[in-house]
């Protein structure tokens, strides 16, 4: 499959072990849920193409990460090449919520001076009775950290998964157009591909279209 994309966003998904990062990603990119998949060690990534306005194709490169503490030193390498971050916690494990601030600070520290756009995700909302974190509380934290969206999602029941990824993409897109995300040489977080007005699916015009 070859695509000519107009924009490409690098997106990273972070959070403690077993909050369901890989499941969210798998649900979004493959439309399925498989609780027995192998956990990523180090780095894995998936690709998704998104056309959210007619004629504007965005390619998302989604980095999956190992959540275990000791893998953090490695996750840093790909934080640098992302513009967006899904910060995930498990609604049924309070501890994973309490660690969000650390994750957030770590990312901010590491990507400086680049911009990182966050979305906060309370995962496993299908387990309604086991929830240990309220919506109000999570929203309060999002506000405090300056995160625009908080979404409660479930990869298992396919609740709000697509919309979470799309909200983040939309926000990055809008911030970019408002000039709030500068592009620097050698930074791969956000790239501009085929110019939008020249884009013609039958006749790709630039070199970059060679690889999907």
């Amino acid at each position: 499959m070859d695509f000519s994309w107009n924009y490409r966003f690098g997106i990273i998904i972070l959070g403690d072990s077993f909050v369901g990062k890989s499941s969210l990603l798998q649900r979004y990119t493959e439309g399925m849920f498989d609780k027995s998949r192998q956990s990523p060690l180090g780095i894995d990534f998936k690709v998704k193409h998104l056309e959210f306005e007619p004629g504007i194709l965005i390619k998302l490169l989604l980095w999956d990460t190992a959540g275990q503490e000791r893998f953090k030193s490695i996750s840093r390498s790909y934080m640098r090449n992302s513009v967006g971050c899904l910060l995930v916690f498990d609604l049924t494990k309070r501890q994973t919520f309490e660690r969000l601030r650390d994750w957030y600070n770590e990312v901010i520290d590491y990507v400086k001076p680049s911009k990182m756009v966050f979305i906060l995700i309370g995962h496993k909302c299908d387990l309604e009775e086991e929830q240990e974190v309220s919506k109000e509380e999570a929203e309060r934290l999002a506000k405090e950290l300056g995160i625009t969206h908080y979404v409660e999602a479930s990869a298992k029941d396919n609740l709000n998964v697509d919309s979470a990824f799309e909200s983040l993409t939309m926000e990055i897109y809008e911030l970019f157009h408002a000039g709030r995300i500068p592009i620097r040489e050698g930074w791969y977080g956000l790239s501009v591909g085929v110019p939008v007005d020249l884009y013609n699916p039958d006749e790709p015009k630039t070199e970059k279209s060679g690889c999907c």
Partner: protein
Amino acid sequence: MARNGLRADSQNLRGTNENLSERESSSIGSDSEINGFTTEKQTDKYGFIGGAQQHTEESAQDVPPEVVREREVKWLDMLNSWDKWMAKRHKKIKLRCQKGIPPSLRGRAWLYLSGGKVKLEQNHGKFQELDSKPGDPKWLDVIEKDLHRQFPFHEMFVSRGGHGQQDLYRVLKAYTLYRPEEGYCQAQAPIAAVLLMHMPAEEAFWGLVQICEKYLPGYYSAGLEAIQLDGEILFALLRRISTVAYKHLKKHKIDPVLYMTEWFMCAFSRTLPWASVLRVWDMFFCEGVKIIFRVGLVLLKNMLGSSDKLKVCQGLYETMELLRTVEPRYMQEGFLMREIIELQVSERDIEKEHLVQLKRWKETHGELRCKSPPRMHGARAIMIADPPTHKDLLQAPTIIVEPPLEDASSKQKKKGKNKREPPSNPTTETLSPAHPPSPTLQKDTPLQQSNQSLSSSSTEQDTYL
């Protein structure tokens, strides 16, 4: 897409499995057989259901049965006087590991090569002691959640709470008790799982200990410094092996940990087709980490080694996409083995580069946080550092091999009197490596040296392939 379908299917099957395995608490054979799994799904010769690991079928080379048979005899002979072979004919062992260890003896050979056998003998009862302790909940929680995520399409690990997963739990838990300061690293689970496919839990535990402490020291420790350091070493070695690939990765600032972490931490067990995994591990146990480096270098060289190939991946993400899905032809057993054996990268090259990179690391990161023991480059180095007694190397049960028929009869006449093996004592080989031989068999086994056993008149008992 076919793979997706398969996953969904086995999910349903797993549902039935869970119910059934509760009733089958003391069963024999693999979990999948118990549950009638095999009748619904094809299991390949490695135990993967539906051929879930990377095009295994078309990647494997077929060795004719008579050759396998010959190799088994040779390996049994070597195992019977392991210390002598290691001391005097190490090159031959290396060559035979390169050709591939016969499947029936692979688990045992790995245990001997790694020094796990010696550790086990010198620490009798240690595993049982660790196994009976409760363990730190901090690690147990993570281990438990990881159990069903290791090779979920291998018949041994397919059912929740089945034999494979139970043993995996025991081995990983025992390690956290053995090295409480290290704890559990998620990358240890696939390593332990591969070992368990070839040997019982106690042996797998010592195999894991050897990998974590001798072959890949520091890989699984907090901070993961050793793996990052090896990433730098790999990258530096690539410069000589493929300048084109090296320049490309450098130009796009592609950090080695981005592509080599899983390769190295899992010793390629999640990357290659299964036939190739086993052959790589055969050599890895014999020759040490240089094999892992060579596999990495071969893959990088083939994937990124010409300007043609690089035209389509101008950028970090394009390159990562290319590296993520290695073309099957580069991982094909025959091709990969030839390339690994031919590639000129020695222990000295690695050690030399290690010093360079360590110095650089200290300049940029400061002192290493985890002091790991020195790396042992393969079976011989381990044996020299940890010399075994002859008793440590005795096989249990001992396998007696009869020489080819025509001279067997003449030798029988000559050596009849020296016969030490009572004919009434059939030393049988257990069929599944996952089930240990019964203790009585181990006890009754006569202690023999290989030259005696080779000329012994009792019939060959090692009958499965």
